[in-house]
């Protein structure tokens, strides 16, 4: 890719004893679409706010174009933010909201504060309203706009300043499903059109996979994995990532040799190498990588305990020796029928044991977990603890 633009070096953020960010090391390339992905409280918004300049890390450096910017206040950074729930100025109309940043006198080359001529402000605002498809709305009060329209105003308001980097803090969180899909495409289009860096914060893994060049999966104030969406999905580093990104069956296994992993006392062929002999490992098997075969022909045999029709496929829960797997298949197997399964070597992904081992991957409580995934993240900020201290999301 192109050159590096932002680097976080050993960034630590803590409030008293509570560590919110634990030695974050991260670089972001120019014109990249990077997503910080993780559950509530993982530190993703804190990271974003450090880049935006609203928080200063307790330890570590923030570099922008190679220059340390830890102490540069937000108004002097060539970074703009699209806030959660937009943070539009209610007392200004659409035009004035977008023009807000342009009306602030900026220091020119010689350090003198200069104001943009009114004509240029007008041109740039109208241009940006066109980019976000809001032409004709400029006189409207922002309170009279729909959620999607407000979102576009927020994006235009940030982009009109021609930032090097646009920070987006769960920008689609308040929109309904359809609108969210449209806006995802829209954002991707804008990013490519404007050719700037987007740093995007979300807890929605689908959104992250669909839009990003690079995904940073975070949990507990640590980066769990950085990579392209495909890599993150196919080669999760640990049980947390495997579980958080898509559906996974995560089973205890033992590496018997390079390319051989033992699950439920049966040996399976796999592509993973480089583990110690007899090392205990976590084995990830994606639900769509499992083939259902006759009981007799199966590598493993189990009983179907539940079947849910999902349109393209069935979500089938199968009990193997007390451990429940999720299998996504186009074949219908009735409940209580005995089946066998086959897994190709490239369907098996072996991970080192981690602190997350044993926490995920069993579908015993399938229905509840499924619901949990659909529950929108509770909106924070309603009664946020304080302006400074409370932004751990």
């Amino acid at each position, binding site marked *: 890719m192109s050159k590096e633009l932002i680097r976080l070096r050993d960034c630590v953020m803590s409030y008293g004893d509570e560590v919110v960010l634990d030695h974050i090391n991260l670089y972001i390339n120019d014109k990249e679409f990077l997503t910080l992905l993780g559950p509530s409280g993982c530190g993703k918004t804190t990271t974003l706010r450090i880049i935006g*300049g*609203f928080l200063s890390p307790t330890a570590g450096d923030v570099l922008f174009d190679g220059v340390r910017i830890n102490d540069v206040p*937000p108004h002097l950074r060539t970074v*703009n*933010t699209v*806030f959660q729930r937009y943070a539009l100025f209610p*007392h200004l109309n659409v035009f004035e909201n977008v023009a807000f940043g342009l009306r*602030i006198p900026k220091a020119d080359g010689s350090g003198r504060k200069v104001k943009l001529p009114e004509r240029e402000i007008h041109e740039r605002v109208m241009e940006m309203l066109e980019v976000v498809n809001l032409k004709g709305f400029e006189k409207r*009060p922002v309170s009279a706009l729909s959620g999607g329209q407000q979102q576009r105003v927020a994006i235009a308001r940030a982009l009109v300043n021609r930032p090097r980097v646009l920070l987006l803090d769960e920008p689609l969180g308040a929109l309904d499903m359809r609108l969210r899909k449209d806006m995802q495409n829209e954002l991707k289009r804008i990013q490519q059109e404007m050719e700037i860096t987007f740093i995007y914060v979300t807890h929605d893994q689908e959104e992250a996979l669909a839009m990003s060049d690079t995904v940073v999966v975070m949990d507990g104030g640590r980066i769990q994995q950085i990579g392209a969406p495909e890599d993150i999905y196919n080669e999760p580093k640990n049980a947390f990532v495997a579980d958080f990104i898509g559906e996974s069956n995560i089973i205890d296994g033992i590496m018997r040799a390079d390319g051989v992993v033992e699950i439920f006392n049966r040996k399976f062929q796999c592509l993973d190498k480089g583990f110690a002999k007899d090392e205990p490992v976590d084995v990830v098997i994606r639900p769509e990588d499992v083939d259902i075969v006759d009981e007799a022909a199966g590598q493993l045999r189990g009983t179907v305990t539940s079947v849910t029709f999902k349109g393209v496929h069935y979500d089938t829960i199968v009990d193997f020796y007390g451990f429940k797997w999720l299998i996504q298949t186009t074949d219908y197997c009735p409940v209580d029928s005995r089946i066998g399964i086959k897994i190709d070597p490239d369907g098996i992904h072996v991970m080192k044991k981690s602190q997350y081992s044993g926490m995920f991957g069993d579908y015993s409580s399938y229905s509840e977990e499924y619901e949990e995934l659909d529950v929108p993240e509770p909106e924070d*900020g309603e009664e946020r603890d304080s302006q400074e201290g409370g932004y751990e999301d």
Partner: protein
Amino acid sequence: MKRKNRIGSRLFIGLTFLFLYLPIFLLIIFSFNAGESSAVWQGFSLDWYVSLFQNRLIMESLYTTLLVSLLATAISTVAGTFAAIGLYSLGKRKRDALLVVNDIPMMNADIVTGVSLCLFFVAFFQGWGSFARWFNGVQSAIELPERLVLGFGTMLLAHIAFNIPYVILNVAPKLRQMDKNLVDAAQDLGCTWMQAFWKVILPEIKPGIVSGALIAFTMSIDDFVISYFTAGSSTSTLAMRIYSMTKKRITPEVNAVSTLLFLSVLVLLVANNVREVRQERRAASQEIREPSFFEKLSMRFSQPSFNWVRRGLTGAMACAFIVVVVLLTGATASQPVVNVCSWGEYIDESLITQFEDMTGIRVNYQTAESNEALYSLLKSGGADYDVIVPSDYMISQLIEEGMLEELDYSQIPNFELIDQRFRNLPYDQSNKYTVPYAWGTLGLIYNAAMVDGELDSWGALYDEEYAGQVLLINNSRDALGAALIHLGYSVNTTDEAEIRAAFDLIADASRRGVFQGKVMDQVFQKMEGGNAAVASYYAGDYLSMLENQADGVDLRYVIPKEGANWFVDAMCVLKDAPHYDDAMKWINFMASTDANLANMDYIGYASPNTQALEAYPAYYEELYGEELDPELYEIMAAPSHVLERCEMYTVLPAATRKLYNDLWIELGA
């Protein structure tokens, strides 16, 4: 059944509101009364409003009130707004705790706030005094004032202090409603914090700030108790002035000024409510609509091309505000001044103007409620008067305690005009401290239409024949004094048995239901309206009652055969008076014959000036075109043979004062 209930509840609501508003309604009506009475309607007139605007004491205090309210509102609005913003940058727990702390001063009794602020200032002044003395002692480059007193400054500080919580209370909810990300967003778009404050926070919380300021202003204008304790002796707000005016009687002038005060506060409150309702409605109807004329105007005005106009206007308004404040404060500071403290309605105010025109000395004229109130004010150290006008017994106490300065009689040639009868009186035997101001008797007032024949004994006060018709003067010295005289004792007796006998006389009459009540100021209304038959009160006030008596009421005044109390109020100068020479000029002026004539006519009390006493009937005739009733004149200025039967109060020893106090409390229970 249901219908009946509805009528009942409507009636109840009606009565509630009647109860709430009838008194104010009456006040407004009587402010338009042509006569002086507050009990009898004598036709419509705006005279009281006219005389209100000509009353310099009221206008001065109005001006003080406006100045302190405006300044306090401006300062506390700024301070409160920033305090509220500061609160919101704290954690939730700390913020909530501090908001509760913020509520306490508002719930706190005004009197506690007032007394504590007064204590605080006085304590600070004492500390400052020692510091300044030390500081002036060790160096001579800068001279610090050693003596600070309560005054406009302390009252302003007090107003700011009690206004800030109201501002915070109004601004805080607006901050809570505000999206916290707005400030971040503004900073993100290139604002410094201060720019974000002006461009984003301020427009968002403006409604809260405006209503906070309006409430603070209303509170400031309304406040009496806190001002009373912190204004010191030389500053009076309108409320304090009204209060001191009601000490003698509620004049229709007070009704007029109260009406205006009520209306202005009403206008402020209505304006605030209308504003809030409008905002809510605007917030509720979010659809696009044609902007109103004013909105168009303000939108047009907020265009950047109008920047210089807006800035100019804001600047001009700020400058105007500062200029007004400087003028208002400066105008009072530069002139020579003499601080006078007297009683309410105890001077013809044109005399003040005359003196000022003649000498160029500004008179800061204040009033106290009673000798005792004046005394405690002086003792608290909060007063910086030059001239005071206490009564006889209080003068001797002040002299005893070394609180008075000897007068320089060479600067008071008019002292020669004071009648011999009023010189070298027991309170100031060698006449070194005082120039008499006015004098009079305390006699028996009765309504001849309600009693048989003529009364000539204090016994009428305790007579069952007038059960429920007698007004007992609400002042232990005067009440017990009349009883002592009736029993043939001296009003200055220290014999406990005699005092107890006098007390028993009153207590017994009280048990038998003779007294309608203990009164001071209400005596005017009750006697004028024919609601009571007998009372004891001052001769000068009797004359004023006589002018206002209702039809069918026939008020008489008599010095009973047992004798009576007579009093002299005299001008004295306080020790260390800051304007001694100007004080001499004032005293000399007030002792002149012209001043005494005018004053006598205005206040209804007799003058101690020989020439004025002789010339008054002629003066009266010239002024009113009718002869002065010699009998009335004798009541006003008792002739020597009457005065000989009267006894003056002297200061009582502490033990006797305590006995008086204890007995009086016993009677009240």
